[in-house]
């Protein structure tokens, strides 16, 4: 074959470019540790998502020191959970699947980009350096409401972030002289023990108790108030743990009324 000298030079140049591109990308993979979404995850049938241990309740979970897993379900036309709250400076592994059609999982302004394919689970690990809010959008056409499909990723500072959940309850009504029991439950979803203080108010009575909740467990606290001191009528109560607050009311009713309204409590 007769090939002109100049063209031979260019063929060599073209090969240098091609190899150069491949070398750069390989450097990105090996040198910088950028991984591709792979096939490591088990497949999952979309109609079994609700019964699945991980996707039945889409959530963020701590799985190790500085490591979190976020189970995300994409479906027409929402993401679950929404918002997705995660800590900064921690490794977050997103597990993304779809309940119905093919969706996208894309955080504009970042390199977080994946397809959510029914039956498949995309696994991608990222780390946000700074607290802040990022939009999360579906970037694959998924039906008529595709353009409304968005979520929010809230990156909190490491100190601020927790997986604490607070719930509290009292009876709706008590008779005068009975004790009002306020039950508060503090759940710690993180691995580290949670040392905190529970503050409660029932009417004008205040309570305080220090509490240590072990990692991945719950603790109950009960505060008791005397209804006679509070008097007949409605009383607001509040429980706070760190930034979480639960409120409600309890009513102290006179005996006659109580009898008339008997059975309300049961």
């Amino acid at each position, binding site marked *: 074959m007769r090939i002109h000298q100049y063209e031979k030079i260019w063929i060599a140049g073209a090969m240098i470019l091609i190899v150069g591109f491949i070398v750069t990308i390989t450097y990105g993979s090996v040198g910088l540790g950028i991984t591709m979404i792979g096939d490591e995850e088990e497949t999952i049938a979309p109609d079994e998502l609700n019964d699945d241990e991980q996707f039945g309740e889409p959530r963020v979970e701590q799985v190790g020191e500085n490591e979190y897993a976020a189970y995300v379900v994409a479906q*027409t036309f929402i993401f679950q959970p929404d918002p997705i709250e995660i800590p900064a400076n921690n490794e977050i592994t997103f597990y*993304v699947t779809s309940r119905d059609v093919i969706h996208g999982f894309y955080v504009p302004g970042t390199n977080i980009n994946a397809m959510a394919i029914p039956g498949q689970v995309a696994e991608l690990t990222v780390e946000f350096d700074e607290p802040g809010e990022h939009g999360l959008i579906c970037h694959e056409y998924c039906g008529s409401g595709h353009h409304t499909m968005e979520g929010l990723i809230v990156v909190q500072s490491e100190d601020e972030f927790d997986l604490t959940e607070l719930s509290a309850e009292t009876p709706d009504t008590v008779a005068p002289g009975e004790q009002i029991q306020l039950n508060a439950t503090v759940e710690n979803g993180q691995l580290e023990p949670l040392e905190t203080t529970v503050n409660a108010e029932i009417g004008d009575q205040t309570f305080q108790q220090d509490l240590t909740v072990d990692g991945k467990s719950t603790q109950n606290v009960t505060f008791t108030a005397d209804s006679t001191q509070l008097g007949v009528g409605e009383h607001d109560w509040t429980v706070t743990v760190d930034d979480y607050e639960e409120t409600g009311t309890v009513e102290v009713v006179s005996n006659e009324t109580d009898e008339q309204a008997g059975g309300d409590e049961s």
Partner: protein
Amino acid sequence: MTALFVDEYPAEARLVKAAFLSSFIAFGIGALFGIIQALHRTDIFRFIDSIKYYTVLTGHGVFLVIAFTIFFLVGLYQWAVTDSLERGPVDIRFTWFWYGLMAIGSFLAAISILAGFLEQPPMVLGAELRANVLFTFYAPLEANPLYYIGLALFLVGTWLAGIDWFRTWWAWRDENPGERIPLRTFMVLTTMMMFFLGSVGVIVSILVFILPWSLEITESLNPLLTRTLFWFFGHMIVYFWLLPAYLLWYSVLPKLSGGRLFSDPLARVVFILFVLLSTPVGIHHQYMDPGIAEGFKFIAMTNTMFLLLPSFLTAFTVVASMEHGARQRGGEGRFNWLQALPWRNPAFTGMALAGLVFAFGGFTGIVNAGMNINYLVHNALWIPGHIHAQVGTATALTLMAGSYWLVPQLTGNRLVGRQVALFQVVLWFVGIVFMTNSMFRAGLVGVPRRTAEPQYQGFEYDVPVGSMGELNAQLALGGTLLFISAMLFLVLMLLTVFNNDSEPIVDGTLPPALSGPEDSPQVLDNLRLWFGIAFALVVLAYALPLAGIVAQSGLFGQDIPPFPVSSEAVMYLEFGLDYVGALVT
């Protein structure tokens, strides 16, 4: 001056004209849909419902990249085979048969898409007639079965076209034993070998999985499998769009420049490389897909990078052929020869500008193909930027420029409005640069593709330079220029067709290459060998990923029912909310 194509081969010219007519009708509708989108998604002018936007988007994709490009391709290739073998098809009725199949197929697909504009689409084949599933029709989004039937008929027609050209060549070979395959026929045959191999994916996907499932014969399918089969076809098809432009660059552009093709052997090598490499790379469209191992993605990446080679070779050969013309026309100097090129000829200028856009648009393709860097751009507006630079200009502008040269030879009429034609191709060039520049920049800040309203409530794009408003304005401006240019082209074509009683001033002869086929080894013409190697490469690249996908979630997936795309958004919102409700309680 030799006889015009229409005088020498009147029967074949009729078919080429019919194919071009179909192509230009599709081009007109597609261009109209294009400007609607440009104005809608930038929120500059919205006159349709955002739900209907997806009907427009599907139409834009299918009409332009299936009907416009492929109808033009079959017309151009029929011309190339006839003109370079100097003989017609073995049986012209067969030729009309495949054209008819393609026409019926595209008509069915078009009807099912356009029915999306109706408030109450009729029921056809047990489902509402609509196909808002985009050009990629990713299952489990479901279109009316008619859409898939239309696509299948169109594909079958295209296969038969390839078979027709092979038959013509076999007949010619018997009449001319021992002769080298003429270059243009060589390009046609290699393109079609590539198409046969690569379209197997989408044909299996439609006939085995999607069509039976949409007719409720099968109950479930594997979305990753049908998606992978689509992309098995989906990157080959982009070269199927491009190779007609390559054929024009290699055969017509040197002549228009006033010179000769620099190297016939390298042109053959380029087309063989496309046969070998354009199919085993499809996984580079699936870098972000779960269920495909990173190793397969890496292999697809390296294959894709080597697929740059034929385009790099083309850049040199074609520019050198142009330079040869310029120097024969008296051009001098290192760069001054560029001035000696026939810039006032719209056919030349259109192709040259298309080539320029292709050279730089190709860069964005390298980014897309670059595996990990694909995180930056996957499904962002960058991607349509790339597509519009490549198919939307390298191909479309070359085809328009080629029409200015070819249509007069097919009709026997003189081209109307040469100056307007020159303005038209230059306008396209300016329009595409405005539009794609905006798309690339918007893509880099995270604006997604394929959406009616890339404006979200929960966040703002972080635009480092300028503003979203400016990017939108630039995109809409570029889109408008492109639309005007497209309409100008169609008007000129129409006027030319009716410009009777005139003599074209086109010389249809193509000069031989500077370095002819005799400079290349005979083995280049051994099509069977190249097809065999290409087949082996495809098996190597796809056997394991496909086996992996099937092993993981089965040939027919895990209970994945159809998901009809209705215009009733509310229905699906409720569907989604039901799940949320179920979770909360």
